[in-house]
Every structure is written in structure tokens, then in C-alpha cells.
């Protein structure tokens, strides 16, 4: 598949942002389940034929584990509440300073549902992340970074592409070492494989670094050497502020004003620093990805889900209705032709 026919990866990340806000803002319950269904549908329908697509089943498995662990924790150390008791385990009282805690004991309806639902919310976020990676190649997404973050982005691209290489190297070394008689087990077999793989990876990294250097990577426009450190620090500070602001906005218990101020301020500093830094970096983009109709659709339904969740929640609309609307919107990309 040629790059030209792909949907812009940032559109998919906008869609994922919509999912995230809807999941976090709507109370955990049937709405979360509906949104999870929409994500699964889109993930299966749209995932690309890339090595990253293999991450999708892994993300689903991780989601199941998260729910199981959350429920398991409740069963073992959960606190009692006032709701009806479903069934009772024999209770084990802990001695000494664990006076408030007891292992096992009665299982309450409310506690069990709430544990399962919080687990489900977290699992939905993890599966969404897996789905977006399976649909939009992360390498392409990193290519869309602004000029000031270009070097960081290229480094990240290489870091993410090393993993598949390491896996191939491990298989190759294991195969080669099976030729050397004498069965090795346990720690010895582990180090026997690790040493050639890591030494090889290091050699390869040095080769790659030398090659990238010779091809002009990290070239600085003459006259812009000074002040580059300061700009980088500004960009990093802005990113931290943006992350903290986003977190504050998503966390219902944090003051709304602080989160908004952090987000807006961080964005402003980031934009300014980015413009400054971009001047020092001279680079262009070969056949940049186009923001086409499909990108508008994908990003649009994500935005719609976000607005529905935020506004509906603020207006006190029935959560199930909001969940149905948001999930229906989010599932739309599955209907359009696959990436």
C-alpha cells in the first residue's frame, strides 16, 4: 500500500482522544461497554497489514488481564460496603498493624460491580491504544511532528523499530547456539543468548548513528547554534505543562481552572518555542501525508464523541443515552472503506 492512500495518522489519534475523554467522563457502566464494542469493531475493520497490527490482539489480552486482576484484588482484599452480600469466603484476619484489612471474607454486589467496571474502563483505554497503533503506523504518526521536535521524533522512530529487529536477532542466535552441543538451561542459556544479541544490537546502533550522521541528521542551520539548548528546555517544559493540564482536565477531582490554565499556557509556550526551534532546523518532508475527507470523518467522529461526553455530562443527560450516541459516532470509521 502506498503512503498516499493512507488516512492521516493524526486523525486516528484525534479519534482516540475522543474515545479516551468519553470513557473517562461518562460513568463506568453500560456506556463504557458500548464504547469498547465500537473500538473493537473499528480496530478489526480498519487495522493495517503492518507488524504493528499484531499489537491489537496483545492489547485485547492485556485488557482482559486488567479486568481479571482488578476483580481478583477486590475479592482478596476488598473492603466491605452496605450492599447485599453475594457470597462469603472464609475470612482470614491479618495480625498486627493490618487491623483494617482482612483477606477474602464477604463479597458485596456493589464492590464487585464497581471493581469490574473500573477495570473495564482502564481496559478500554489500553485496547484503544492498541487499536490506533494497529490502524495508523506509529512511524508515520511520528513523522508528523513539527520541525522543532524532528530530531526527537526520528530518534523515537528508530527506538520503536528496534524491537522487531531484536526479536529476529534472538531467534537467530538461539538457532545458532543450538548447533553448539551441550544443552544450556536457565540463567546460563539466558545470558548465552543475551550477550550476542545485545552486543550485536549495540554494534548496529553505532552503525546506524554513524550512517545517520553522514546523511545530515541533526544538521543545524549555520548561525542558529546559540540558544538551541534554551529552546529545547522550553519545548520540554511546555510538553510537561500540556500533559499535566490534560491530566487535570480528565481527572474530575482536580480544579478545572488550574487544568485549563496549564493546558493553554503550555500550548502557548510550546507553540512559541516550536517556531523558534524550527528556524534552526532546516528540513523538508518528502510527500507529506494529506489530510483528506476520510481524515475529516475519522477526526470528526472523535471530536463529536468528545463533545457529546463533555456537554452531555455537564447538562446531566442520561449516561446510557450519551454512551449510545458516542459509541455510534465512534464506530462510523468501520463503515467507510478500510485504510
Amino acid at each position: 500500500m502506498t503512503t498516499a492512500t493512507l488516512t492521516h495518522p493524526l486523525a486516528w489519534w484525534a479519534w482516540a482522544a475522543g474515545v479516551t475523554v468519553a470513557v473517562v467522563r461518562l460513568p463506568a457502566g453500560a456506556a463504557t461497554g458500548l464504547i469498547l464494542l465500537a473500538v473493537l469493531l473499528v480496530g478489526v475493520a480498519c487495522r493495517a497489514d503492518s507488524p504493528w497490527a499484531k499489537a491489537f490482539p496483545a492489547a485485547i489480552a492485556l485488557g482482559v488481564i486488567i479486568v481479571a486482576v482488578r476483580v481478583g484484588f477486590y475479592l482478596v482484599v476488598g473492603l466491605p460496603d452496605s450492599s447485599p452480600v453475594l457470597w462469603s469466603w472464609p475470612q482470614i484476619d491479618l495480625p498486627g498493624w493490618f487491623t483494617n484489612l482482612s483477606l477474602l471474607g464477604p463479597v458485596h454486589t456493589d464492590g464487585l460491580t464497581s471493581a469490574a467496571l473500573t477495570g473495564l474502563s482502564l481496559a478500554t483505554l489500553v485496547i484503544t491504544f492498541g487499536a490506533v497503533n494497529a490502524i495508523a503506523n506509529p512511524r508515520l504518526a511520528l513523522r508528523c511532528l513539527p520541525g522543532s521536535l524532528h530530531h526527537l521524533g526520528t530518534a523515537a522512530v528508530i527506538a520503536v523499530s528496534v524491537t522487531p529487529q531484536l526479536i529476529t536477532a534472538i531467534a537467530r542466535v538461539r538457532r545458532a547456539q543450538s548447533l553448539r552441543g551441550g544443552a544450556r538451561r536457565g540463567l546460563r542459556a539466558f545470558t548465552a543468548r543475551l550477550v550476542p544479541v545485545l552486543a550485536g544490537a549495540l554494534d548496529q546502533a553505532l552503525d546506524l548513528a554513524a550512517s545517520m550522521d553522514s546523511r545530515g541528521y541533526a544538521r543545524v542551520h549555520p548561525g542558529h547554534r546559540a540558544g538551541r539548548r534554551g529552546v529545547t528546555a522550553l519545548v520540554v517544559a511546555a510538553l510537561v505543562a500540556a500533559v499535566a493540564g490534560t491530566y487535570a482536565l480528565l481527572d474530575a477531582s482536580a480544579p478545572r481552572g488550574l487544568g485549563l490554565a496549564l493546558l493553554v499556557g503550555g500550548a502557548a509556550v510550546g507553540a512559541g518555542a516550536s517556531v523558534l526551534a524550527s528556524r534552526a532546523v532546516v528540513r523538508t518532508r518528502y510527500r507529506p501525508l494529506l489530510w483528506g475527507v476520510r481524515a475529516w470523518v475519522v477526526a470528526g467522529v472523535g471530536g463529536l464523541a468528545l463533545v457529546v461526553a463533555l456537554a452531555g455530562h455537564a447538562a446531566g443527560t442520561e449516561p446510557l443515552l450519551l454512551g449510545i450516541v458516542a459509541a455510534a459516532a465512534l464506530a462510523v470509521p468501520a463503515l467507510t472503506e478500510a485504510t
Partner: protein
Amino acid sequence: MIEIENLTVTYGGEPVLTEVSAAVGEGELCLVVGPTGSGKSTLLGAVSGRVPHLTGGQVGGNVRVGGRDTRTHQPRDLADVVGVVGQDPQATFVTETVADELAFTMEQLGVAPALMRRRVEEVADLLGLADLRDRALHTLSGGEQQRVAIGAVLTAQPRVLVLDEPTSALDPGAAEDVLAALARLVHDAGVTVLLAEHRLERVVGFADMVISLDGGRAHAGRPAEVFATAPVAPPVVQLGRLAGWQPVPLTVREARRRSAPLRERLGSPVLPTREPGEVVLTAERVRVTYDGFVAVDGIDLDVRAGQVTAVMGRNGAGKSSLLWALAGAQRLAGGRVRGEDQAALVPQSPEDLLYLLTVAAECRTADADAGVEPGTTRGLLDALVPGIDDDANPRDLSEGQRLALAVAIQLARSPQVLLLDEPTRGLDYAAKEHLVVVLEGLADAGRAVVVASHDVEFVAQAADRVVQLADGAVVADGPVRDVLADSALLAPQVAKVLSPQPWLTVGEVSAVLAEEQP
């Protein structure tokens, strides 16, 4: 274009290059030759700016490329003047697809998008990559990958191209491909090329100039003049020196024109052949498949003791898969192998076998694994390559020493059959000749040796029998002289010069001439 004046490079007090001076003119192809460790890579690094910026070390003298001093310019600041291509193209790829890789350097240099698009198309046409533009890099063959690596630096339109052994991992056909592309660049585009290469026989014909390195000192000049005395030389040059031709011929064509008297003098070769022993390893209708792709397609093969068998064929013809199958380490889709418990394989990258921090520890572990007397492996190693330091890290050894260590470890079990997959990768002429002697010794001692190789000159020296594969099937199987001498692509240089008489190596010719002398 490239001016090197009194270049001296020292790492930790040990000089690698001493007072090297040379000047390469605009549009010339300059060959850098010399044994392993003679400083070829260091010289190339000094031109591309990697020495000293990435490697450290002390540098004296001056290197100027296109008027820029490489000591004051980082490699990245030379990217628009010097393009660098390494041995392993895959290790230098930054992106995923051919078109993106071709554009990467231009993106870094800030070339305008419209111009970038045009240059990618032009370079793709120039190097025959047009149909591969949208392919993923890891799906390409070795020769295609190397052409992409060359194209990836060419798009920035550098005036100098520095290549460090670009064909060492390729089979003869693919190597021919890459060298033809290079020759075209020199002739049509006027690019100045600095090329280091082990297997000289293919490139000497293209060179305008040669820098021969030996022990850190350089001799630069026109090819015929330098090769009259250079420590490493392709077989055709060695034959010319032996026959006393002046100036020494550089190509088969030149040598062939002067070879009539020599052919008459030599006559037909009457050479002793080793009597093969009994069959020690048998493959019966062996089939190997990977995800539906057939690598080995029903091969029958008898491996006999006291004989060196060479398996030849282009990359992907099934050589490695056949060797792994013979070693009993490959799941077969059909057929069977008998006697595989008596076979030991040294894989293509011997370093994968080694994992301990010292040579002594590797030897001790091999003794323990094989259940033999302590010191056996070390003894075998000393017989192969004497004088390797016990405390050396196997990763710091030269390619030849590392191969010897892997062979010694595999021989500790005293297998009847030794299988070697592409053992000549990265070896210089001296190390290859040593390997020939080692393999002969093993065959004389009654062992069977199977070598997969696409190095024609090495096979001509080492093998008694050649099995040629294509598409996973045997297309030729017979004594080395019968298979190689009349082959169009696989004939060694000496055979091409002296045909129709089936001489294969300089060694054979020199032995006959030495007998005549007294």
C-alpha cells in the same frame, strides 16, 4: 576533489595510518586495497569525517574534501559533499520503504519538496529501482538493498561517494549489479568514488587510481604501477607477475591477449586429485519450506569423507537451508538426512555462537560441552590460528580469528563432517589462503568438509567437488575443475585467462612453473 596530506591516525598510542598522502581527482574511481587491519576503514572514515568525530583518536595532517577540512567539519556538515555507503545496507536504513529511504538525506538537508520528488524519481531510474519504490526495505534482496543504500546518498547529489566493501555480502551476480551501477555513476554522472574492497578481481578493471595500504603506510598511484608490488592483488595480477608480463594486466581481457605463450608452455594440467572416502552424510529428497516458500526442493546428496565439497549458487538458492538441514538443525518438510549427528555447522555469523567474555572461557566451555580433555579446544585453535590471546574478548578478534575460534569449538566434538556457511565473508586474501590450508588439512585427516560459498576464487582453491544450486535444486554436481572451468559466471580468473586448458588457480600454475625452472 579529495586531498590527503600527511595523514597520521593514532588510537591510544598505536598508529593506524602513518604519513598517508594522496590526491583523488574529480570524477575518478579510486580503489583502496590492503590486508585486514591495514587501515582501509580508517582512511575512508577520515574522508567522510567519521574519524575523528565519531571514533576518537588523534589525527595529524590534513584531509580536504571538496575544499572542506574534515577535521573541522562534522560528518553531518559534509552530508551534501560526501555520501557514505557501508558493508551492511540493512544496518544503515532509517525508514521503512524505498522511496522514504531515498528521500531521507534530502529531508535532512532541507531540499525543496518539488525538487526532492524529481530527484527520487531520477535516482530510482539511474539505479534501476523504479519498480521497487513502494516496497518495504526488508523485503528486498541483498543486491537491491545495497543499490537502495547507494541511491539514498546519491539523491543529495554528493560530489564524492565513499564505499566500504559494498559487495562483500553479495553473490557474484548481485555484486556485478552494484559495481555496474557504480561504474555508470563514475562515467555518466562524474561522481568521484573512493572504494575499499576485499575481492579485488571484480573492481580493478574500473579503477583510475589505487591506494595500497600496508602496515599503515600507503602507496598511491595508477593501478598497473601500484599492483606490480602491492601486497594484495587479484589472481589475474598475480598470474601476470608470475609470467613476468610488464606492465601487469588488470583485467582478464588484457591477460588473455598475452597468454598464448604461457598456455603453450603449461599444456594441459595433470594434477593429483584426492580419492574420496566412504559416504558419511546423506541427504535423501530433502525439502525445506518457509511459510510456503520452497527453499530446498527435494535434494539428494552424498557427502564423502576426505573431500571438500563446495555448495554454490546465488543468494536465496537454498545453500544455507541445505547446510542447516545437513546439520540436522532444520525442520524438514520432506525427505531425511542420515549421519547428521556426526556433523557440526559453523553458521554464517560465527559470533552468534560465542557468548563468553574471553577466548579461554569459550574454549573451557567447549571442552566441557563436548566432554573432552581440558585444553582440547585451545589446542585445536592453536593448530588453526596460533597465538590468539587467552584473555582477548572474542568480539575484538579479527574476522579470521573469530571464524577459527568458532571452528575450533565445533571441532571439539570431533565430528566426521564440518559444515561451513559462507566462511570467507570479511576475510582478506591471506586469511582465505590460510582457511584453504586448514580445510585441506581436515580433508587429509579423513574428515568431510562442506562449504557454502559464492566466492569463486576461494572455491577454486579449496574444493574438490562443487554442487551448484538454483531455486533449491541441484543443477550441477561434479569435480571442481569440470564445474567451474567452463562456466560463464563461475569461472575463476585464471581459468578465463588460460582456457581451454582447465587451470583454476595461480598456485597450480606457479607449482608447474617452479618445477620447470631448475
